[in-house]
C-alpha cells in the first residue's frame, strides 16, 4: 500500500506490471546490453585499448633493465639535472621509471610509430597522466606494465603524476618528445 507498510496484496509478485514500466525496463535492458557490447567491440575494432601485458617484477630488476636501455639509447641530456633524453628505437621497447618524485628518463618518440613502453614504480603508486593528450594509467610498484603506444601528434608532452605519492607529488612532471 505504501513504501513504509508491507505490501497490501499478499501475493504481490503476481500483480501485473504496467505496460509503460515494461517498456522502460526493456529500454534499460537493451541500453545496458549495447554498453556491454561496446566495450567488447572496442577491444576488437577500437584503437585505444589498455594493454593487458603485465609482469610481476621488483624495483631492482626493473631499474636494471631501464638503466641498460638508457645507457644504450641516450641522445643528449637536458635541464640542470642532466636528465637523459632517450630515443626509443622505432617499434622497440622503451622504459619509464616512476619514482619519488620524477619520471625518468625523458623519452623521444616518432609520430606514427608503435612503441612498447614499460612502466613501473620504484616506490609508491604513481599515475601516468599524459598531457594534453589525456591518457591516464595507474603505475604500481612490483608490476611492469607493457603498454603499446603510437603517438598521433607531434610536440612536447608532459607526464603529470596523478596518483598522490607524497609531499613532492606536484613536482613529479616528466616529458615525452614526439618528432
Amino acid at each position, binding site marked *: 500500500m505504501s513504501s513504509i507498510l508491507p505490501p497490501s*496484496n*499478499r501475493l*504481490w509478485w503476481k500483480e501485473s506490471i504496467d505496460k509503460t514500466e515494461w517498456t522502460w525496463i526493456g529500454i534499460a535492458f537493451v541500453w545496458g546490453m549495447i554498453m556491454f557490447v561496446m566495450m567488447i567491440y572496442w577491444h576488437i575494432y577500437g584503437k585505444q585499448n589498455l594493454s593487458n601485458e603485465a609482469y610481476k617484477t621488483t624495483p631492482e630488476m626493473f631499474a636494471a633493465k631501464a638503466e641498460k636501455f638508457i645507457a644504450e639509447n641516450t641522445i643528449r641530456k637536458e635541464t640542470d639535472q642532466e636528465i637523459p633524453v632517450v630515443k626509443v628505437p622505432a617499434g622497440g621497447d622503451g622504459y619509464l621509471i616512476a619514482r619519488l618524485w620524477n619520471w625518468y628518463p625523458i623519452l623521444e618518440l616518432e609520430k606514427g610509430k608503435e612503441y612498447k613502453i614499460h612502466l613501473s614504480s620504484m616506490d609508491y603508486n604513481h599515475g601516468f597522466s599524459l598531457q594534453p*593528450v589525456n591518457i591516464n594509467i595507474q603505475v604500481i610498484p612490483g608490476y611492469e606494465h607493457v603498454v603499446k603506444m603510437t603517438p598521433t601528434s607531434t610536440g612536447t608532452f608532459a607526464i603529470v603524476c596523478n596518483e598522490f605519492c607524497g609531499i*613532492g607529488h606536484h613536482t613529479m612532471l616528466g616529458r615525452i618528445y614526439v618528432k
Partner: protein
Amino acid sequence: MATTYRTCPASGLQFEAHAEKLMKWNAVVAVLWLLVGGIGALGVIMTRWPAFKLLPADQFYTILTAHGVDMLLLWILHFEMAVLYFASSTLLRCRLATPKMGWLGFWLMVIGGIMTNVAIFQGESSVMFTSYVPMQAAPHFYLGLILVAVGSLIGCGIFMGTLVVAKKDKTYTGSIPMVTFGALTATIIAVFTILSGAGILIPTFLWSVGLIKEIDAQLYRMVWWALGHSSQQINVAAHVSIWYLIPAIVIGAKPLSEKVSRGAFLLYILFLQLASAHHLLSDPGMSAEWKVLNTSYFMYFAVMASMIHGFTVPGAVEAAMRRKGFNNGLFEWLRKAPWGNPAFAGMFISLVSFGFLGGISGVVLGTEQINMLMHNTYYVPGHFHTTVVTGTTLAFMAVTYLLVPTLFRRKMIWPKLCQIQPYLFGIAMSITGLVMMGAGTLGVSRRHWDMAFSGAPFQYEWPGAAYLMMGMTGFFGVITIIGGALWIVLVVGSLLFGEKLDGGVVSDKPTPIPAATPAASASHHGSDHVAVPGTVVLAMALLVAFVLYYYVNWKYLSEVWLLS
C-alpha cells in the same frame, strides 16, 4: 531488556525506546562528523582554488585525508546506522534486537573514528582514505578504521536480528515494507563491504606494526576497492530507500509495482558490488575479461536496476499527485508538488542530480576504455560529489527534516531557511560537481596541491579553461559549504532550541501493523496503477542525455594516441 514504545502523534510512527536512543545518538555523531569534514572541505576547496591556494602542501594532504575519511566513512556510516535501526525497528514496529550490542557497535565506531582522526591530524598518516600500500600510515590509522568496520558490522547484525524479531513477534504480516527491503539491500552490501575491508585492513595494520613484511600493491587495490566502492553502493541502496520513504510520508506515494522495485533491489544485491572494478580499469594486473565483466556490474544489470528506480520513484510521486487531482497536462503534478517542503525538495533534487549527473558520469567513467581519459583526474571527485553528496548526503539531509520532529520531538526552527537549504546545497553542489568534471575532462589531476607544478624540472601549462573551471569549483564549492553549514545550524539549532513537541502515547507493548484486510487489498491493488506520462518524458530525457554523453566520450577516446 524491558522497553517501551512511543507512537508519534504526528506521523503515527512507533519508536521503541532503545532503537530511538541509538538512532538519535548515531544521527548526532553523524552530524558532528559532517561538521568536521565540512571544515576540511573548506580547506581543500580554498587550496585547490588557484586564486587562493590557502594551505601549504603538507596540510592540504592531511586535510584532504581527513575530509575523505570523515565524510565518506564517518558521516555516512553513522547516519546509515540510524537509517537501519529506523527501517527495521520503527517501520516494523518491533523491539530492536540486542540493543546492548547496538551500543557496543556505536562506541566502537566513535572510538575508531576518533582514533583514525588523531592519527591523521598527528600528520603521519596523510595517505588519503584509500591508503594504498606501500605508502604507510601510523598503525592507529588502520586500527581506527578496523574498529569502525567492526562497529558497523554489528549494526548490520542487529538489523538482520531485528527482522527476525519482527517476524517472530508477528508485528507485521506478509513481506517487509519496500523501504525496509531497500535497507536490507544496503545491509547485505554492507556485510560484503566490511568483510572485504577486514580482509585487507587487518593485514595492513599488521604490516604497519611490522608483523607482515609486504603486501602486494595490486592485491591491496583490488581488495581495498571491494571496501571502498561497495561502501558507496551501500549509500546508493540507502538513499534509494529514502527516495521511497519521503514521498510515502509526505504525499502518501506508493510504489508503482512492488514486484518491479523489489526485483531492482535484488539486482543490486547480486551485482552492484562488482562495480568496485571501476577503480582498477587502468591497472596493470587485472585481465580485460575481469575488468569488463565486473565494471559492467555483470552486463549492466545493476545500471538497469538504477534506471528502474529512477523511473519508479518519480513515477510513484506522479501517481500520488495525480490521484490527488493534479491531472492537467504532462507536468501539473510536478509543478504542484510540495516544493516548499524541504524533505520533498531535497529528495527530488537528490534524485535528479544523482540520475543525470552522478549516474551518467559514473557509467561513462566506469567504461573500461573510456576510463583511461579520466582515471585519477578531477573528473573522479566531480563524479562522486554528484553521487555521494547530491545523492546520498542530500537525501540524508532531506529525511532529517522529517526525523527532527518525529524522532527528536522538536519543531524545526526558521522554516523559511529550511525551505531554501536543499536548493542551496543541492544546486550548488551539482554545479560544483559539473565544473570539477569539466576540469577533469581537460586532464587536471585529483589530489594535487599545485596545478602550476612549482618546483618541477619542467613546465606544463594547463589550458586557460582548466583554470576557469577550477576557479568556478572554488566559488560554487564555497556556496555548497554554506548550504551544508546552514543545514547543520538548522538541525543543531532545532535540537537545542526548537519548540518541544508532544511525544505521544507510550506503551510497553508494540502495536503491530494492522494486516491488510482482504476487502481492502481487493478493492485497491497493492500498487499504484495510474498512468505516469510525465515520468515517461523525464525518463526519456535521461536516456537521451545518457546516450549522447556516452558516445561523445567514445569520440574523445578515438582521438587520443593509439594504444594496444
